[in-house]
Each structure stands twice: as C-alpha cells, then as structure tokens.
C-alpha cells in the first residue's frame, strides 16, 4: 500500500509518513526443550517478528510420567513416596494434601505433635523452594551472583530437613495417621520411637535467624538494583480476573492483588495457632511476583520460629492398621504449595489402592496463562515473565 503524494500541496518532506508496510514474514523461533532458561524440558514454539513475539505455543509432555495411572496400581503407603516427586523442589509439601485426604476418608485423628512437625517441615520446604526461585530468577535476567547466595542459604534448610527425615529432596516422612514413628517396624526398634533429633530446636532457630538476614541482603542486592527494577517493573502484568479465569494460584495470584491463601482455610494443619500475614502485590508485574515470594520466606521463617516455641509433646502417630484399606468414598483436599494450590481428588472403592486419584498441580494452571500474557512481548521479557512464574516441569507434566 503506497501513499500517493499530489504535487500541489507538497507536505514538508519530514512529515510524509511512510506508511508502506515493510513486508516481513515472521520467524518461527523454537525455544526448545533444551534451553538454558526453561526450568526443565518445556518447549515454546514462538512466532517471532524481529524481537517481538506475536504468539507462543508451549509444547508439554517431555516430562510426563503418568502419575495418575501409576497411582491406580499402588497401595496407599507406596503413593506417598511417589507423590513427593511431582514438585521436587518442595518435596515435603506434595505429600500433605494426599495424606490429609486419606486421613479424612479413614476418619483418623492425627496427634498434635505430628501436625506441628508436618507444619514446620512444610514451611521449611516452602523456604527452600522460594530460595531456588530467588537464586534462579536474577539469573534469567543476567545477574550471576545471587544464585550462589541463594543456594548457600537453601543448604541450611535442606540440612535441617535431612537431619529430621533422612532425605533432602524426597523426605517421605509422612505416614497415614501421623509422622514416621520409628526407623524400623521390628521388635528391636519399636522401643525407640523416632522423634526430632537432639539439638534440632537450637539449629533451627539459628538457621531461621540467618535466613531472615539473608532476605534483607537479597532485598538490597537484587530488589534495590535499578537495572533489575527496570527489567521487571511493569513487565508481564497479569490482571486479577484473567488470573482467576485461568486458575493461576499461589504467589502469582497474590502478586496480582488478590489476598487468597489456602493456609488460612486448611483444617488439617494448625495454621490458626500462628500469626503471619499474607503479602500481596499491587499491580501484578514481575517485580511484585518476585517481592511477594521474598516476603513469604520471611513469613515462613517466622512461622517456624513460633512453631518451635509452641510445639506440644506427645505421640507421633495415631493407631493405624498395618495394611491400610481406605473405606469407599470421595474427597478433594487442597493445600497451599509454594507454587500455588495443589489438590488431590481421591476416589477410593475400599481397595488397597485408590480407584482414581486426580492430582491438581499448581504450575500446570500457572503456565496455561503464558500464551495470553506473552502476546507481543520482546524476547528478553519473555524470559523475565517466564522466570517470574517459577514453575517446575515435574509439576506441569505430572
């Protein structure tokens, strides 16, 4: 389409707006499964016009392990070991909703001390998961050192989890009806019921103090940096109604201004006995998503400190039959995972294993909003936005 210029009133040359559309056909850029910043094996087929992305189509399934099918061939204790491998960054939090669902169906009353230990380890896993984000997100944007400081603080928390449960990533510490009672079930070991190791309280208090200091350091090192603020402020704004329509949950939803945290409505963990506030962001951009997670680390550290002071003593596991058969019934339990809402819809027909287990993971819905939010965005921003969604591919592909 060319503009026709009539010779009489020739406009001043500089004002002739060349409205000839330079015909550029877009390029299909394959931000493939093997890419430094896709948090695992996610493939984005992006139609790119110069630097601007016209549309993005995520291709999933590279990490699909078929958990819902596996759950149908396993017994209940075996599923708890299977389930904490879904979101491996926060291993402990995946088991809680499944255990709560089975306990609800079996009407088992979990002792107080076991609930407190579960709550403490959930909050520690949340701190570990948010530290991975705190380290990896500035790496997406180009800052290389925060990753090392984040991993250093995270090691402290993982060592604590390992000293209690024996595993750093996959603790497998939950049993139906409470927490792992003893190293073995045999007569010799029955006597010494395992509990928190000696000196655990003191170590946890020091660790939480250093973590609170680390959060302030991160606020200066990353949040204060003008380049980081320039790269994340106002980038990838997610309005609240789009977030709820796509089922985005967790820190991303709270960053968009909705004060909704499943921890306030859970009844199987004693969150009501602690006072913590829920950080929310104002305009739902990448900076808010980063800042909400940083404040959540502080809240979780405070919760763990309060939990240590007020932990009751008592048994660790309720009376549960050796072979667990869950009575027929159906129930959906959801919990506040570090990534968002994680829920298990358990349909049991009284057999050794569940008839059908629907696993609702947070990152799957969080990612489904990516094609909407990545319209017309520059490539460097694509990474800033994707990084701020903090997803783990195990969570997405189940």
């Amino acid at each position: 389409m060319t503009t026709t210029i009539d010779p009489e009133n020739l406009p001043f040359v500089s004002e002739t707006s060349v409205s000839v559309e330079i015909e550029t056909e877009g390029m299909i850029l394959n931000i493939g499964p093997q890419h430094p910043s896709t948090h695992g094996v996610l493939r984005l087929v992006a139609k790119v016009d110069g630097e601007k992305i016209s549309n993005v189509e995520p291709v999933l399934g590279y990490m699909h392990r078929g958990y819902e099918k596996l759950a149908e061939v396993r017994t209940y204790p075996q599923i708890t070991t299977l389930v904490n491998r879904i979101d491996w960054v926060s291993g402990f939090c995946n088991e809680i909703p499944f255990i709560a669902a089975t306990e609800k169906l079996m009407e088992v009353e979990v002792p107080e001390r076991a609930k407190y230990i579960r709550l403490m380890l959930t909050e520690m896993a949340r701190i570990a998961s948010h530290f991975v984000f705190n380290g990896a997100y500035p790496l997406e944007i180009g800052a290389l050192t925060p990753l090392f400081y984040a991993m250093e603080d995270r090691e402290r928390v993982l060592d604590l989890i390992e000293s209690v449960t024996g595993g750093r990533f996959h603790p497998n510490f939950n049993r139906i009806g409470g927490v792992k009672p003893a190293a073995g079930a045999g007569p010799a070991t029955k006597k010494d019921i395992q509990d928190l190791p000696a000196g655990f309280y003191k170590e946890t208090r020091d660790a939480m103090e250093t973590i609170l200091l680390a959060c302030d350091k991160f606020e200066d090192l990353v949040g204060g940096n003008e380049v980081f603020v320039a790269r994340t402020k106002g980038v990838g704004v997610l309005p609240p109604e789009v977030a709820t329509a796509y089922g985005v949950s967790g820190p991303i939803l709270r960053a968009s201004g909705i004060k909704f945290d499943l921890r306030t409505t859970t009844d199987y963990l004693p969150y009501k006995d602690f006072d913590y506030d829920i950080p929310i962001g104002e305009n739902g951009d990448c900076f808010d998503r980063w800042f909400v997670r940083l404040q959540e680390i502080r809240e979780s550290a405070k919760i763990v400190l309060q939990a240590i002071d007020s932990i009751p003593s008592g048994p660790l596991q309720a009376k549960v039959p050796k072979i667990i058969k869950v009575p027929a019934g159906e129930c959906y339990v959801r919990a506040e995972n570090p990534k968002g809402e994680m829920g298990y819809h358990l349909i049991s027909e009284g057999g050794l294993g569940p008839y059908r287990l629907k696993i609702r993971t947070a990152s799957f819905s969080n990612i489904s909003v990516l094609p909407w939010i990545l319209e017309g965005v520059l490539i460097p921003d694509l990474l800033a936005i994707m990084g701020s969604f903090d997803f783990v591919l195990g969570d997405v592909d189940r």
Partner: protein
Amino acid sequence: MSFGLELIIKIATVAAIAPAMALALTIIEIKGSAYMQRRPGPLHVGLRGFIFPIAEVIKFIQKEDIIPTKADKSVFKMAPAYIFISVFGLFVVIPASPTLIVRDLELGVFYFLAISSLSTIGVLTAGWSSANKYSMMGGLRAAGQLIAYELPLILAVIGVVIQAETMSLVGIVEAQKELGLPFIIAGQGVAFLIFMVAATAEMMRVPFDMPIGESELVSGFLTEYSGIRFLLFYISEYINLFVMCAIASTLFLGGYHIPFLPEEWVNFYGPVVLISKTFALASVLILIRWSFPRFREDQLQNIAWKILIPVSLVNILVTAVMKVVL
C-alpha cells in the same frame, strides 16, 4: 637502528604484552568472581588454580574446531580475525611513557576511535555466518549496540581533547602533568563516567551483554564457535578490556604520570603506573559484571540515545566555555 628492526622489536613487545595482560585479567576475573561468590574457583589446575588461563588456552587449542555445514564458510572463518586486528591495532597509541610508545601519532585519539569501531564488523559477520537463528539475533543486537555506543564514546573523548588542546595521547598526559591534576578531577569527571559506560557497552560486558545474553540467546553470536576460533574471541575480549581501561586511564587518570615521582625515571615506573591504574579500573568493571543484571534491548538504546549523548554534548559545551573563560 633501521626502521625495520625497530618495527620488529615493537611488534614483538606488543605481541608479548597483549596476551600476557589478557591472561592476567582472566585470572583476576575468574578467581575474583569465584571468591565474590564464596567458592574457590578452579583449584586442581596447578598453583591452586592460578595458571588456569594457560590451561584454558591449551584446552581451546586442542579442541576440535567445528564449522556448521550450512555456515557461510569463508565469512565464518574470517570473523574472529576482524576483532583480533581491531583490538591489537589499539596498542599503537597507548603511551607507557613519553618515549615508550609504538608510534606517538599526532591524531592518536582519532586513530583510537576509528580502529575501535572495526570490531562491529567482526561481530556482525560472526552472527550472520553461523547460520543459526540465535547467533543471527545476537549479531544484530551487537551491531545495534556497538553503533549506538560509538557516539557517546567519541563525544566523551572530545571534552578531553578540548581541555588538552591536542589529539596525541602523550600530549594529553603532558597536559595533565602541567595541570597537576588528572582530568577526572579537573573538569572531565562526567566525561569519564560516560566513557566508562560506553566502553562497557563496546566490550559487551554486563550490564550490556545482550549480544551474548546466555539466558536468552544461548551465547549469542558465539554459539557456533569452538576450538581456536572461540579462543580468539575470548582472548580479544580480555585484550579489549585491557586496552579500553588503559586508554581510559591515559585520558582521564593521568596515564603513566604520578605527581611526586622524579621525572628522569619515568621510563622505568611509567609502565608499572599505567598497568596498575588499568588493573584498578578493570577490577571495578569486573565487580560490576558480577553484581548487575542485564539491560533489555530498548532500554539499552534509550540510555545511549536519550541520556549519554545529550549529557556528553552538554559536557563538551561546558568544557569549551570553561576553556575560553579560564
């Protein structure tokens, strides 16, 4: 001594100094950044890791040099040469003392600015010829960035030239000697900042390393290079760092001159002073590299066109007025 012999000696010294300085800077960068991140860095290479760059050079030399099949072979092979030449060319004008200089050109500054813009061609051809979408984007980004930051570099240097009334680098250092104060204090502080920001962008170091943005473009125009070609890129990056800091210290920090040392010995302490000032500047750049994220493409251009150039023009105006007044 005939001109030819003198030329050979000078070329030999430059050919010896440049890689040595590059290796020294690599050591500072790698071990320094490791300790900044509270890890020991390379340890088992020898001397607790301090001969790591030599090991790296040998590693790259014996590595296989892959040329992608669809690549534009001849251009692909020549690309590192452009950058290497442009970086080596800059050694001509760096004065280690009034006499210890390859060739004291009357238009030293003009020569320096002309040669330093040669590397844009090398980066662009490298990006284009490796037939890979990511490196093509890296190459185009590099072209945009280098050209955008040529201008503030030149305008910042003009302020110095006005104040020193000469274009030859030795003359500039002499001017600072009479003034008694290095130019960074005597009126050219703003120009120093602009020069350093523009130089960081020229060297494509963080926070301007969009062309080699590892998290997006895998490693920009360097993606397809390996073996000795990558080594040429790598070495010339560090020589470029040394040269830019050397020229910055010559123009702004008084080069080989220190106020209270005796004049006669300048041939002996001159190089040491210049190198120490250069390494100080380089370690500041290294510290910046490990504590800054990366700018986005359009922010990068905004800074160049909307902030650096206007400020450097104002700086020239102020210097010219001060020149007339004083």
